[in-house]
């Protein structure tokens, strides 16, 4: 990593405390005060001891009383400083988490589809933790360290300015050693975080796919693969931990050498009568005292690399290009649900052109069905219509307005969607339904459930609407998950409806019952339906037959059957044994 990038990461990391200048100042002030009172304490002790020797009762009692005051004050200053530091680092990490979450909501789906979710989770969990720890350590040790150094320098100058200058001049040595190590540890820490991300991604994938793993007896192979990632992580972790822990011994060694040099030079000077023994011992005491905070700071600097390495991974994620900003665009004005595709071309990133120059006019309240073999691009049409992906060229007019010129939310709120891959959030059934319409009351929820024939099931659950469910859970069947997502869409009461294989896991009897609910929902609404059970789309106004990204036939059921083409074959195949 280049020095400039490093600085950028560090300053971006520190910018998270920008709104907390008060606490920053408080922390600094408390560090200063506690260092001062810490330095004061030995002086008071000295005065008290002197008073004992001088048998001066009054000044003895005064000194001891002051000692008590200093001890209590120092404790207080330290406590306030700790609290301020906690606040600084924990709120910085909290804000970072919020930013990561915000970014997830802003990234295009093309990014989210192609990057391991576990790695993003790892940035959110492990890397932010690491930054918080680094900041806390930094604030706590760095401030007091700097203050102690400043205090000691002042003390040294008051005793002997020559020695002070010598010691100050030799300190770069230990800093040089520390920065030498720090530079190397950064790489190890970065690799450690990376392999942690890889590990999280693997665990995420395997725990999510546990069913498949068990079915194919993959446990053994998974363990081997995990151990492989794990030992790579361990190797990086060992290097990072070990090298970062070298700073303290090495800087201490450098300081010992300085100490020896001072002792040698001073010793020779004293032996030659150029210096008193007392002065030499004084110099030596300060030389060792002065070195201590330097040791601590240099230790912090290396540990801090861990935080910077993690911060770098976080900021790389935050710098990923977001979807174009649409906050200044007007909202789409919802009218009657007219949709016009004009000259749409599309390819998934890095794949061949899938849709080429697609045009279509859909009148309000039309029921459009899209059929065709799998992989023909049906779901891609939905991806484009919902603007999950943007077309390469061409645009879609919704109610006469160019959808690229409107906010995504206003476009998406025209539609309610039920997808082939159902997804439920981890939460109660009520929370899941409210995704469709946050304003719905329990009565409306039960109505929607009744329409989807789930009311009996929900009532049989111990907690009813408050039953906790999650996407990973096997206790709720795939068909029931799908019915829930239909209920969710019904609650949204949209202008338009998108159903992508919405009832593929639902049994046909329930499907017919739901069909009636759909029909009443679709009345007066434009709808787009993808279905394999062609019986469900026979009454569509327009059936588009897609193959390899383009429309090969279109028309009503009767027209297509009369034409005797691809659709006709497909339709008849349903009834062949």
């Amino acid at each position: 990593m280049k020095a400039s990038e490093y600085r950028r990461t560090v300053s971006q990391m520190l910018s998270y405390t920008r709104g907390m200048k008060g606490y920053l100042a408080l922390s600094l002030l408390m560090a200063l005060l506690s260092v001062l009172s810490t330095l004061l304490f030995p002086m008071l002790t000295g005065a008290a001891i002197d008073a004992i020797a001088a048998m001066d009762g009054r000044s003895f009692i005064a000194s001891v009383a002051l000692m008590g005051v200093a001890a209590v004050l120092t404790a207080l200053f330290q406590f306030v400083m700790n609290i301020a530091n906690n606040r600084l680092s924990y709120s910085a990490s909290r804000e970072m988490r919020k930013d990561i979450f915000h970014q997830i909501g802003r990234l295009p789906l093309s990014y989210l589809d192609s990057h391991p979710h576990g790695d993003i989770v790892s940035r959110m969990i492990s890397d932010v933790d690491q930054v918080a720890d680094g900041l806390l350590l930094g604030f706590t040790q760095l401030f007091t360290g700097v203050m102690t150094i400043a205090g000691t320098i002042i003390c040294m100058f008051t005793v002997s300015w020559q020695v002070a200058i010598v010691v100050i001049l030799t300190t770069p040595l230990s800093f040089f050693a520390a920065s030498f190590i720090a530079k190397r540890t950064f790489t190890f820490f970065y690799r450690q975080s990376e392999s942690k991300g890889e590990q999280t991604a693997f665990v995420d994938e395997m725990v999510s796919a546990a069913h498949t793993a068990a079915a194919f007896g993959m446990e053994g192979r998974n363990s081997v693969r995990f151990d492989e990632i794990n030992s790579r992580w361990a190797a990086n972790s060992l290097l990072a931990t070990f090298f970062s822990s070298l700073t303290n011994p090495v800087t201490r060694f450098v300081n010992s050498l300085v100490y020896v040099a001072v002792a040698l030079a001073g010793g020779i000077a004293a032996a030659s009568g150029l210096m008193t023994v007392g002065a030499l011992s004084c110099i030596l005491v300060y030389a060792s005292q002065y070195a201590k905070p330097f040791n601590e700071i240099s230790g912090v600097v290396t540990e801090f690399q861990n935080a910077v390495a993690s911060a770098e991974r976080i900021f790389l994620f935050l710098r990923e290009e977001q979807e174009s900003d649409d906050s200044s665009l007007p909202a789409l004005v919802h009218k009657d649900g007219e949709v016009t595709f004009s000259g749409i071309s599309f390819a998934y990133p890095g794949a061949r052109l899938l849709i080429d120059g697609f045009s279509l006019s859909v009148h309000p309240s039309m029921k459009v069905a899209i059929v065709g073999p799998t992989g023909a691009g049906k779901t891609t049409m939905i991806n484009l219509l919902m603007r999950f992906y943007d077309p390469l060229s061409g645009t879609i007019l919704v109610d006469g307005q160019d959808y690229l010129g409107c906010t995504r939310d206003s476009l998406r709120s025209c539609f309610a969607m039920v997808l082939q891959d159902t997804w439920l959030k981890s939460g109660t059934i009520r929370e899941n339904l409210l995704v469709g319409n946050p304003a719905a009351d329990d009565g409306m929820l039960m109505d929607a459930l009744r329409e989807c024939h789930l009311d009996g099931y929900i009532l049989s659950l111990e907690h009813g609407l408050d039953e906790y469910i999650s996407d990973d859970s096997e206790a709720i069947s795939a068909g029931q998950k799908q019915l829930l997502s239909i209920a969710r869409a019904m609650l949204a009461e949209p202008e338009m409806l998108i159903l992508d294989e919405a009832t593929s896991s639902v049994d046909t009897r329930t499907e017919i019952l739901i069909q009636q609910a759909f029909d009443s929902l679709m009345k007066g609404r434009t709808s787009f339906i993808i279905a394999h059970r062609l019986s469900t789309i026979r009454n569509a106004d327009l059936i588009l037959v897609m193959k390899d990204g383009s429309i090969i036939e279109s028309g009503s059921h009767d027209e297509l059957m009369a034409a005797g083409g691809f659709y006709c074959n497909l339709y008849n195949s349903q009834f062949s044994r």
Partner: protein
Amino acid sequence: MGVRLSTFIEGHKAEAVLAPLFKLLEAVFELLVPLAVASLIDVGIANGDIPYILRMALLMVVLALVGLASSVTAQYFSARAATGFAEKMKSALFCHIQSLSEKDRDEIGTSTLITRLTSDATLVQNGINMFLRLAMRSPFVVVGAAVMAFTVDSTLAWIFVIIIPLLSIIVALIMRVTIPMYRKVQNALDSIARRTRDSLNGSRVLRAFCRTADEEKAFREDAEAMYSLQMASGRISSLLNPLTYAAVNGAVAAIIWFGRERFGMSLIEVGAIVALVNYMNQILVELVKLANLIVTISRAVASGKRIQAIFDKEPSMQDGTFSDKADGEAAVSFDSASLAYADGEPSLSSVTLTVRKGEKIGIIGGTGSGKTTMVNMIPRFYDATAGSVSVFGRDVRTWSLASLRSLIGVVPQKAILLKGTVRDNMLVARPDASDKEIEEALEMACAYQFVMEKGGLGFQIEQRGQNLSGGQRQRLTIARALLRRPDILILDDSTSALDFQTEARIRRSIASIEGSTLFVVSQRVSSVMGMDKIVVLDKGHAVGIGTHEELMRSCPVYQEICHSQTGGAR
């Protein structure tokens, strides 16, 4: 009780002992330096003996070098012990998670498994590392200072005897209060992880319903809640440093106060008082270092408990021992088998069915009628809560899971593919399969053509098969199961995203497999009507078992299903 975490130090015991020992050695060499300086002054300077001074300086350099060497060795051993411990623990934890049944994992939740394997494991690792570096040194210095105090003045030294337990109590109290708090912080991290995973996996739905802002709001609340917990635990641990500081300085004041009395009685010299104060200060310096350690260790203990809790979760399923089929004609038999996922209505109630080898069974029924539940019991994903299921003449609970499952090919309802090439995904079923065999399986599942169009077996599939259509994913999972050439093939509604033509072709190629016992779960009558036997499920009960013709005569539920599908067309 599961594995104890402490067992993971096995194999690193030597490092765990050597690390603190070398750390101690370093401290000893550090203590020798003042002696060298003293003789440099007392002998060298006093006699004006410059060669002696040089020798002493050289000795100090040697001492520093030896100190450096032992310190570096100590750091290395502690890093190794801590990393080795964490590596073993993670590996065992991953294995353990895999050994849990689906029911167990459902109960625990995926997100918390992830945070425990990552965040908590790191905290434990840090705890061990810091513990090995400092844990021996600090008590050594503290106790050493007290012992030295007795050599100076045995009466005033009692102040040390009082203050050390007091300091221990402060440390113990703070640990006791903060450990449960740190545990809460980690629990809060679980919900952060859960929301993050939800926002990633549910990005389409959340965007479609314009709920990203709401989710973000909820996340922010969780982040605030976690922040409050961090601040609360931070407030307590922030007390540690000030309290120990005040206690030690209080002791210094006590030494001086009582020192004056003894001085008055001519029982002590001023120099001795100074020495005692210095020893007390050494304790203070050491305690400052220890304070950070205490926080790290408390967090490690809290996280260790969370990890231990997962290890303590015994797999609710015990592995059996049989690895071969028993004699007999039956491939699978259900004997009054019932299954309830949670307390309440069972998902499957007392189903009895015997399936002979090579028989083809269709399972049909309404949503939530127990179809998936029934087939999930064959590879023992779930155990019957009453009754039993046998495969090839043996109760599934007596089979070794690996042997049992190796006989079965499952195509689950949710087509799950892994990140990797098509080949990688196929080899999951049979690691020794050749490309030719893979291609044959793809051909049978009508997947060969699209795989070749996409670039062949090396085509890279994204996580969850995100870059394939639903139908393509289903065909690949079918091919994967077929590649296994299983004795029992289970297709759990795994053609729902396929058009009828493709489905019919796959059905024909599967029907051509000889000898395989087949279970087909489907919503479509056309998929099951040609089967030897059809099981009709309704609310967990088998309301009809028989051929299509028999059921058409005798089973009203089946008639209804048929009617709903053929409608007016037939």
